[in-house]
């Protein structure tokens, strides 16, 4: 790599000013009602953050209602039924509508600025994710006001959640509403992973990357492997609820424990998915107030990556009391203890940084210290409950309630409050008040500990979780009263923060630029803020460029780095390589559009209609959603630029179009498909899980119904299906090859053939279980075979749409031999489909023969 000499020499100020004006125009948000069509990360990130914060307040009010009910024994402030709705929604809202979304929200808001990028690579995807989140969140929360909220607990264990007597529509609202939001989370993960790997500023090698980006990279990868199993579980549970497919009904070969596995293989990594991005903010705040670089950077990277891996070996520690063999519990106990090592290392690195620096007192730092005090306590009780024998006592008692709130509030909420005080000037150009901040901190810190510290004891005195009342005289009365008082003190603290946040500050003067004297790129932000993110995308030589690079801010402001202008009137950002951040492309990102919102409304509609079992409406809405997404792809992606290359400044010329692994779209497809494959793996896990618990699988009852002599599904039709699917894949790859070689017409013909054969594959795979006479409501075996067939068939159907889309793009002249992003990505999709179909065949057709 040749070193880029920087900055560029100074230019005529008038020219620079004209450039700035044009750049501002390009990045400006639309005015009036069109404002809501904006897709830029600053706006979407802000809406996302505020919405998630709103859900936090809602979830908090639910908690206060619960604490009021539990203040005294045998209270009748709320009914048992309503209390069940309260704790179910409190957990679900805090986890799915606050903790996970706010990390995505803050990342969307901050990550591009921390990387001095103009935007994330897929702004419309962020907007789509936001609208999904808003619609799903309101749907789930709104159920409370119609007395239709779910009552199954945030873990929604069957058979309670499939019990007709106790589980009403609330469970469907929960399943479909939250599945919808999970899709949005995965979209955000794709965006953030590529944002970190491909959208760093030139020169920001991987060893110079801010720790926040490291954490977000790890968390993105974790979301990719943690959320899909839950989506698979949601699918199974909803199929049982809606169509009586007995996945979790032991009377018909199902098993309630399958749900627990699928739920917790999501649920435990999720705790770290919440914790890591919040602790990432701490990793940004501590160096600023210690006024020195972070100590133990490599150790913190170890912690982030190590935690990401180990957190997938913990899920059974939520199932210690389910009677699994000791040796199995032992594995998970071991991993649960091991994960404490990386978790601890990063805390020690932060404190070591504080030891080495000259620490400045500030409200964010106060919250950081409080967060450490609370989180370390939660971590220590976590080490305790990771030991199986102790957990047998503590599990499902108030000890766990205390433990999880210590970890989540110390590991997530207090850091988020620190982030609020730290980044408020970044967003609004004005600081939050110091004195109310200190008062709020002490109210929150005191209230929290008064509420939750006694709960450890309450739990060890035998009080189970999720009880709407308790008898007097068991030693719990006083402790509960204290907890309730603490909860209200805490709420008062939240109120102080909210008032300070929302009070009008029109007359308050702007703060100085970079008010905390931080060293990282997000503090390049101007006061008052400009829509472009950074005036010019800088070349980076240090982990703390604002501290280390001479006259850095001035050079950025004078447009002496990359992309200082927007001559063609397009929104542009830099794409760089993953390891050394060498510039490889100037990426055009799409501007404001209502299409993401429309797509979210229709897709959301299909989930919501399905809740009420209005299936035709759901299908219609879903088709409209697919149409909206196709329209979005058609007009907004893989556009052929008016020229091949562009001079981006500092003497560098970059291509405007990149297909294959060099482009961001290919990576988005690849990463999405990894997540998708994980969901499929979740379903396959279900198949083998049933095999382990049954002596005969496929079971005899299915075999008895067969006309043929084959076992279960038989081999002929699945074999036909998989053969056709592989043929569809081969033809797609051939079409890509031909298209690239300029054989456009031949490629079009091959695409037609590929689509026809792939459609036939879809039909054959669906016909297979039908031909075998498998009745999905009879037993878990046919239900599992059916769900696998449907899953693969649906994916093949999407593959057919992709093939036809390529054909249409080719006919419309939007895809050519040199500009073949659509074709390359479709081929990538089909690589995964070929593997999926082959695995499907091996599992449902070949495996039964092998026994």
């Amino acid at each position: 790599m040749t070193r880029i000499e920087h900055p560029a020499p100074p230019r005529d100020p008038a020219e620079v000013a004209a450039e700035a004006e044009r750049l501002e125009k390009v990045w400006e948000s639309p005015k009036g009602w069109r404002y809501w069509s904006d897709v830029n990360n600053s706006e979407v990130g802000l809406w996302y953050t505020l919405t998630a914060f709103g859900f936090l307040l809602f979830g908090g009010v639910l908690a206060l209602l619960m604490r009021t009910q539990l203040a005294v024994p045998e209270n009748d402030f709320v009914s048992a039924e309503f209390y069940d709705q309260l704790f179910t929604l409190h957990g679900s809202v805090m986890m799915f509508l606050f903790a996970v979304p706010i990390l995505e929200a803050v990342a969307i808001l901050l990550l591009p600025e921390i990387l001095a990028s103009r935007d994330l690579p897929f702004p419309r995807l962020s907007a789509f994710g936001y609208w999904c989140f808003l619609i799903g969140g309101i749907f789930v929360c709104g159920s409370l006001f119609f007395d239709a909220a779910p009552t199954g607990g945030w873990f929604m264990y069957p058979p309670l959640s499939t019990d007709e007597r106790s589980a009403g529509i609330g469970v469907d609202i929960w399943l479909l509403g939250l599945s919808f939001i999970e899709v949005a989370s995965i979209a955000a993960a794709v965006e953030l992973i590529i944002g970190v790997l491909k959208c760093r500023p030139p020169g920001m090698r991987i060893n110079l990357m801010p720790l926040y980006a490291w954490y977000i990279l790890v968390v993105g990868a974790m979301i990719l492997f943690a959320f899909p199993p839950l989506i698979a579980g949601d699918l199974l549970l909803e199929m049982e609820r809606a169509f009586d497919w007995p996945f979790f009904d032991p009377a018909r070969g199902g098993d309630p424990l399958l749900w627990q596995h699928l739920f917790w293989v999501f649920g435990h990594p999720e705790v770290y998915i919440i914790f890591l991005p919040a602790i990432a903010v701490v990793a940004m705040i501590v160096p600023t107030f210690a006024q020195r670089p972070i100590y133990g950077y490599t150790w913190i990277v170890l912690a982030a990556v190590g935690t990401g891996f180990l957190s997938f070996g913990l899920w059974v520690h939520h199932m210690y009391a389910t009677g699994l063999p000791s040796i199995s519990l032992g594995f998970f106990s071991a991993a649960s203890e091991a994960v404490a090592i990386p978790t601890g290392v990063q805390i020690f690195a932060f404190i070591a940084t504080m030891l080495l620096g000259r620490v400045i007192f500030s409200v964010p730092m106060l919250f950081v210290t409080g967060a450490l005090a609370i989180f370390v306590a939660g971590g220590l009780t976590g080490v305790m409950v990771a030991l199986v024998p102790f957990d047998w006592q503590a599990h499902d008692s108030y000890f766990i309630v205390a433990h999880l709130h210590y970890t989540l509030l110390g590991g997530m909420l207090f850091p988020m409050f620190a982030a609020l005080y730290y980044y408020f000037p970044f967003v609004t150009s004005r600081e939050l008040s110091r004195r109310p901040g200190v008062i709020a901190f002490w109210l929150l810190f005191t209230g929290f500990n008064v509420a939750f510290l006694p709960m450890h004891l309450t739990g060890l005195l035998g009080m189970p979780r999720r009880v709407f009342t308790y008898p007097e005289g068991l030693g719990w009365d006083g402790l509960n009263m204290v907890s309730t008082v603490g909860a209200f003190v805490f709420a008062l603290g939240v109120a102080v923060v909210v008032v300070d946040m929302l009070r009008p500050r029109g007359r308050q003067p702007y703060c100085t630029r970079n008010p905390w004297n931080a060293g990282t790129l997000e503090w390049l932000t101007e006061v008052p803020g400009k829509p472009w993110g950074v005036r010019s995308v800088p070349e980076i030589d240090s982990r703390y460029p604002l501290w280390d690079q001479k006259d850095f801010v001035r050079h950025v402001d004078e447009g002496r780095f990359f992309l200082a202008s927007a001559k063609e009137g397009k929104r542009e950002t830099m794409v760089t390589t993953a390891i050394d951040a060498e510039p490889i492309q100037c990426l055009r990102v799409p501007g404001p559009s209502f299409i993401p919102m429309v797509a979210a409304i229709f897709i959301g509609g299909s989930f919501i209609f399905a809740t009420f079992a209005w299936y035709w409406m759901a299908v219609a809405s879903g088709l409209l959603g697919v149409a909206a997404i196709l329209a979005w792809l058609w007009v907004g992606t893989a556009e052929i630029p008016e020229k091949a290359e562009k001079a981006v400044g500092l003497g560098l010329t970059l291509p405007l179009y990149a297909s294959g692994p060099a482009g961001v779209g290919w990576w988005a497809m690849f990463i999405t498909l990894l997540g998708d494959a994980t969901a499929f793996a979740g379903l396959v896990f279900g198949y083998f899980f049933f095999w382990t618990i049954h002596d005969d699988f496929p079971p005899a009852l299915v075999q008895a119904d067969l006309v043929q002599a084959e076992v279960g599904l038989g081999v002929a039709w699945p074999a036909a299906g998989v053969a056709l699917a592989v043929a569809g894949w081969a033809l797609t790859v051939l079409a890509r090859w031909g298209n690239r070689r300029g054989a456009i017409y031949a490629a079009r013909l091959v695409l037609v053939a590929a689509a026809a054969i792939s459609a036939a594959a879809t039909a054959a795979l669906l016909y297979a279980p039908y031909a075998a006479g498998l009745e999905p409501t009879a037993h878990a075996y046919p239900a599992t075979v059916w769900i696998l067939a449907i899953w693969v068939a649906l994916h093949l159907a999407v593959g057919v749409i992709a093939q036809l889309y390529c054909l249409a793009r080719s006919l419309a002249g939007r895809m050519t031999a040199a500009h073949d992003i659509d074709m390359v990505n479709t081929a990538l999709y089909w690589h995964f489909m070929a593997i999926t179909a082959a695995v499907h065949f091996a599992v449902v057709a070949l495996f039964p023969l092998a026994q």
Partner: protein
Amino acid sequence: MTPRKDSLWELIAGPTIWSVYFLVAYVAAAIVCAKGGDMDSLRIAILGLAVAALGAIGFAGFDAWRRWRRGHEAAPPHDDDTAMSRHQFLALATLLLCGLSFVATLYVALPAAIFASCR
């Protein structure tokens, strides 16, 4: 010396080996305990696999250590804007992750050494 091209896949070698080991041990134990099987062979297999995994992690760690030591910079923070600094940072991070994975693999092998039945 010009450092060779680095990749992020190397970085996660240690934890990946741990993950595979963990998954195989868990699945094997689940199947043996559910379907009935010889517990002694299971334990020997899990412990044998642990030795193999520890060896692989140890090798990856040793390789990372060698790469790290051969660099120009004597110690962290490895925060220079040079290919060497980046190379040494990745080597050190790989080494640390191998250390963690080594401990985690030892931990996961413990239950197989302790429990003689599926109870």
